[in-house]
């Protein structure tokens, strides 16, 4: 069987037509995980028993004619989402013993849609990283070249879908953690508007930036899964009470007449030549389909990385103060006193990059430095937001590369945090402004996938998905699979 060559949407249609059962589909993917995962390290936990039980339930539901387009389709969740009764590690030693007592809203909703849980995917520790090398469970390998990183922080989800050991997976994106790994592994990585998807049960990193989304094979898959997980949730006070459109129904909208803005600042010196050429060619192809293209300047956007590396660590230092070795998570052995318990539990439980960000955040929030760093960064965030607002008064979407280079070698950037942070130079802006954005495969550079990033105004998910879908109807980059996994 070649079930893994089908997209999630195609599997859903196959199940609805009773061409195969969810149990068959699930067994197929579990067997592929067993074969490929040892080399890729994409999964932290494989929930085989749970998956087969889910699949049986889905088959019964389909037999009653009660299924939806995702009923019986397997999914993998990033290990940042709480899953009842299942290890939820967030890629950290701190939570290596944490069995979640409740489900994240995202998990609950995809479960209700009838999706089958294959397992939990590896990730950068607490989602802090751009290469999946900071995980307590070791680095994830890119299936396109196992000497390379898959990107991060949702690197396990990306590697799992790229290798087709899972048809689709969830991710989270605080500074590019869905789009960048999506680009580096040839996937459609979709980050919705801040507030579109509930953050309840999603372990917090930087709460004004974190947003859940999808790593998928196609815009259609992203539309289906996003539609099932989005919507208001009273348990997340930042979730927005706006109705969720039928994203799948909106996919067919033509791109003729679409006004595209090219972000000038995204085509500077740091952009690798082949990557830039592939992205430019893709934008030209949209022009050929009747879109108009104009170059725009967003002058404050180059400040997005330094802004982010004040705002995100500040929020992380506050969020991660909950890990105190008392109520859950790692506790050091034989603490002398309470202070020793806190310091050693946290010192042992957190990895190097997490500690670096907690300390950066602690510093920029500390007395005497708050105005110079944190308040200043919040003001520059306003300037960046205004740049986007002005741009969207002129154009429907903004386009540019997702990442400055294709996947890089494991270990290449681990010694230099700033070099690593600059991987997210094109993705962070959308997080600071809370905008929806998608990365779609648009070519290869040195044999590795390149992503085209499309950014839209708040709640323009439908438009972004239609643009991505139009592109995927005209090209087959999204159907290419890494050698050895086809």
């Amino acid at each position, binding site marked *: 069987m070649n079930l893994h060559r089908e997209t999630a949407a195609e599997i859903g249609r196959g199940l609805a037509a009773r061409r195969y059962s969810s149990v068959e589909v699930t067994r197929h993917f579990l067997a592929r995980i067993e074969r490929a995962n040892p080399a890729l390290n994409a999964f932290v936990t494989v929930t085989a028993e749970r998956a087969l039980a889910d699949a049986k339930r889905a088959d019964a539901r389909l037999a009653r004619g009660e299924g939806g387009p995702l009923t019986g389709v397997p999914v993998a969740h990033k290990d940042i989402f709480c899953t009842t009764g299942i290890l939820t590690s967030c890629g950290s030693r701190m939570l290596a013993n944490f069995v979640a007592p409740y489900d994240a809203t995202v998990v609950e909703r995809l479960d209700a849609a009838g999706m089958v849980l294959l397992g939990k995917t590896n990730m950068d520790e607490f989602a802090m990283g751009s290469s999946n090398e900071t995980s307590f469970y070791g680095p994830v390998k890119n299936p396109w070249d196992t000497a390379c990183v898959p990107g991060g922080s949702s690197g396990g989800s990306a590697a799992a879908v790229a290798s087709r050991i899972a048809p689709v997976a969830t991710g989270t994106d605080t500074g590019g953690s869905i789009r960048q790994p999506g680009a580096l592994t040839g996937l459609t990585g979709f980050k919705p508007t801040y507030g579109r998807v509930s953050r309840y049960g999603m372990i917090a990193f930087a709460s004004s930036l974190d947003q859940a989304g999808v790593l998928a094979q196609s815009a259609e898959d992203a539309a289906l899964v996003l539609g099932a997980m989005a919507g208001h949730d009273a348990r997340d006070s930042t979730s927005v009470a706006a109705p969720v459109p039928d994203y799948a129904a909106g996919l067919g909208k033509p791109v003729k007449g679409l006004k595209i803005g090219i972000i000038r600042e995204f085509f500077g010196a740091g952009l690798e030549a082949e990557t830039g050429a592939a992205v430019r060619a893709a934008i030209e192809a949209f022009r050929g389909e009747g879109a108009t293209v104009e170059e725009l300047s967003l002058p404050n956007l180059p400040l997005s990385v330094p802004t982010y590396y004040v705002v995100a660590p500040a929020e992380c230092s506050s969020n991660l103060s909950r890990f105190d070795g008392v109520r859950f998570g790692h506790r050091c052995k034989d603490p002398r006193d309470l202070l020793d318990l806190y310091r050693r539990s946290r010192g042992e439980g957190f990895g190097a990059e997490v500690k670096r960000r907690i300390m950066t955040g602690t510093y920029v929030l500390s007395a005497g430095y708050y105005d110079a760093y944190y308040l*200043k960064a919040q003001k520059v965030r306003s*300037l960046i937001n205004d740049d986007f607002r002005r741009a969207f008064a002129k154009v429907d979407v903004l386009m540019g590369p997702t990442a400055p280079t294709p996947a890089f070698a494991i270990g290449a950037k681990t010694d230099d945090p700033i070099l690593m942070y600059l991987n997210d130079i094109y993705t962070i802006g959308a997080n600071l402004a809370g905008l929806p954005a998608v990365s779609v495969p648009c070519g290869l550079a040195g044999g590795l996938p390149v992503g085209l990033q499309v950014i839209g105004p708040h709640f323009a998910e439908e438009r972004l998905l239609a643009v991505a879908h139009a592109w995927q109807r005209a090209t087959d980059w999204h159907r290419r699979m890494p050698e050895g996994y086809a």
Partner: protein
Amino acid sequence: MTLTRRDVENIAHLARLEITEAELPVYVGSLSAILAFVEQLSAAPTADVVPMAHPLEGQNQPLRDDCVTESDRHEAYQANAPAVEAALYLVPKVIE
């Protein structure tokens, strides 16, 4: 901005993080580099700019009704705790 060992020890203390002797110089270097990198923000003209705390303008934090919505699940939650006795979280003695 160049931090000293003393600065990093102080930050680590505020953050309740034990940093080993071997880690300390690494953090002195990388935290100094990060602060130097974010220093470029100081050149941005922000005199009359309102700071932005979150992306959703006009989104007010809703208040919920003041009523009990959670059931008592302390056993499930405390199953993850490193030390519990009589439904209480145990920590080293604080008061002599």
